[in-house]
């Protein structure tokens, strides 16, 4: 949508100067009829108005975002805080999940997300090191980057199907922590690669040059100089990866999580309960959906606190790192 026809603004531009600076000696300007001046003033007003109006809209857009976040947080806090107490955090669900706590879910989410990190971190960092330190632009890099981008776009439920067909069925891991962690590991791999590469990019080239000039090989330079300098940044990325994995539901539905298990997992081949899946189950398929609302709010609040806590740490930590370089 055009705000004003372009012709007007071309005529309008010189007039605009005439209005603000009467000392302009240009023949063309001074010979303009008086009505032209009025037109110009009106036009300038309209252009300013267009700007004020549009900027107002932009401000509104940002405010809507902020409001959405505040509303969701306030809503969960208001409803969930009452449900949270020591029993809730330290006990297993009782009476077909209508009472008791969520300890197995917290533990399950913890195991799954850290498991995913252990799987994805080495591969992700190695990929990033190759892409940023070794690779020259060319077909290989283009294909690898396309692979990463497409992997990042795969829907989480498709990761779930893949995990079911490959890890659970084909590798015979069963519905287990291991299968879930491997599936989540594949899911967060692009996040890890992206943040690790960003961390490598932040290491000044002078570090590498100094090391190479001292006679170190490329690998020695990477291992002794580049990686230690980039490590804090990579850690930030891994925190984001863990938080992403912790909130993921669809990918663990068929691979790791179960409605309810009476005992704590004793090996990585056991299935677990998990916070996000627990919320889904209680809210849609529980025995008493309305009666367990407080439990649902409480579980959601714990999950949000976990995820946001990790994200805030990452954001603050990153801001401090950026100041360093």
């Amino acid at each position, binding site marked *: 949508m055009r705000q004003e026809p372009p012709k007007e*603004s071309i005529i309008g*531009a010189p007039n605009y100067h005439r209005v603000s600076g009467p000392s302009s000696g240009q023949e063309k300007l001074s010979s303009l009829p008086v009505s032209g001046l009025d037109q110009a003033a009106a036009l300038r007003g309209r*252009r300013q108005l267009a*700007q004020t109006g*549009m900027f107002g*809209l*932009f*401000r509104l*857009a*940002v405010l809507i*975002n902020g409001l959405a*976040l505040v509303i*969701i947080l306030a809503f*969960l806090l208001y409803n969930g805080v009452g449900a949270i107490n020591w029993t809730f955090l330290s006990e297993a669900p009782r009476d077909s999940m209508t009472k008791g706590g969520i300890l197995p879910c917290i533990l399950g989410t913890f195991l799954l997300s850290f498991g995913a990190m252990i799987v994805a971190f*080495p*591969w992700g960092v*190695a*990929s990033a*090191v*190759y*892409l940023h330190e*070794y*690779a020259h632009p060319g077909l*290989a890099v283009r294909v*690898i980057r396309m*692979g*990463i*981008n*497409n992997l990042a*776009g795969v*829907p*989480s*439920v*498709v990761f*779930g*199907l*893949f995990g079911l*067909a*490959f890890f659970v069925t*084909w590798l015979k891991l069963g519905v287990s922590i291991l299968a879930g962690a491997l599936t989540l590991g594949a899911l967060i*791999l692009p996040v890890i690669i992206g943040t690790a590469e960003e961390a490598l990019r932040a290491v000044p080239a002078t570090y590498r040059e100094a090391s190479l000039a001292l006679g170190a*090989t*490329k*690998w020695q330079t990477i291992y002794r100089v580049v990686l230690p300098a980039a490590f804090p940044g990579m850690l930030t990325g891994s925190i984001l990866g863990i*938080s*992403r994995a912790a*909130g*993921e*539901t*669809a990918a663990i*539905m068929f691979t790791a999580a179960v409605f309810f298990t009476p005992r704590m997992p004793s090996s990585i081949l056991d299935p677990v309960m998990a916070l*996000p899946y627990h919320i*889904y189950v209680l*809210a*849609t398929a529980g025995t008493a959906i309305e009666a367990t*609302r407080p439990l*649902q709010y409480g579980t959601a609040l714990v999950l*949000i606190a976990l995820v946001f806590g990790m994200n*805030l740490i990452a*954001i603050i930590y990153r801001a401090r790192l950026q100041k360093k370089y």
Partner: protein
Amino acid sequence: MFKNRQVREKAIRMAFFASATVSIVVLSLIIVFLFMEGVPIFKDVPITKFLFGRSWYPTSDPPDFGIFPLLMASMAVTMLSAALAIPLGIMTAIYLAEIATPRVRQLFKPVVELLAALPSVVIGFFGMVVVAPFLQETFNLATGLNLFNASLMLAFMAVPTITSISEDAIYSVPIELKEASLALGATHWETIFRVIVPASLSGLSTAIILGMSRSIGETMVVLMVAGGAALVPTSLFDPVRPMPASIAAEMAEAPFRSDHYYALFAIGMVLFIFTLGFNLIADHIAQKHKQVGAATL
């Protein structure tokens, strides 16, 4: 010894190259296993009947495996959420990149990042317990769990994606272009609208496509708030059952390697092909219309 060192360096380089292919390997495995478990359905159900069949009754006898209603539901929620998320996301990006003072930016950038970090199950939960009753009462509907509610929730998931990619695109517009426009007497808004947005159009398109790709594949939200009826939607407030919702809801009850199981994997294939397509288009745009320096406009 010097030779040894060179051999070792080469070996290390190769090892890193091998590790870097892990994403390709995983992606290939996903394709192989998805198709391995999905293709068998086409022995019993012809592919056209699968895609355009109008009824999805996987558990009746004989079962019907027509995913057309699910496909239409996915399209509908994606389009509607895009219609909401694109203006919101791009306007937010322009504000953060162009208009906001550094302090405002510092405050709102984490807001967008935290929105992106919201687990989808929590957004779905919010849609169920807050938005659904609200819609039901306000518009006097049979159920608040419907197409509109799902699109609204999806839009909030797509906005951070669109915003952060658009913001990068806007930042990469060369400052010379902006200065030239301002020097010609254009207002800041005119500069944004006529210079900065056109110059970053390829980045903005990439942002939009990736945002839509995220919406079509998002599962928990549509599973919890879309309503779940496998019907071709005719109104904004119809309950629908998009493809990811069907997979997530039915996989647990589908007997292992039954037709139903194969059909769900085949839906996964369709979904995968959609998101792959979106991503390839985005990749193509980003490569072809790369923003390099001031000479591109």
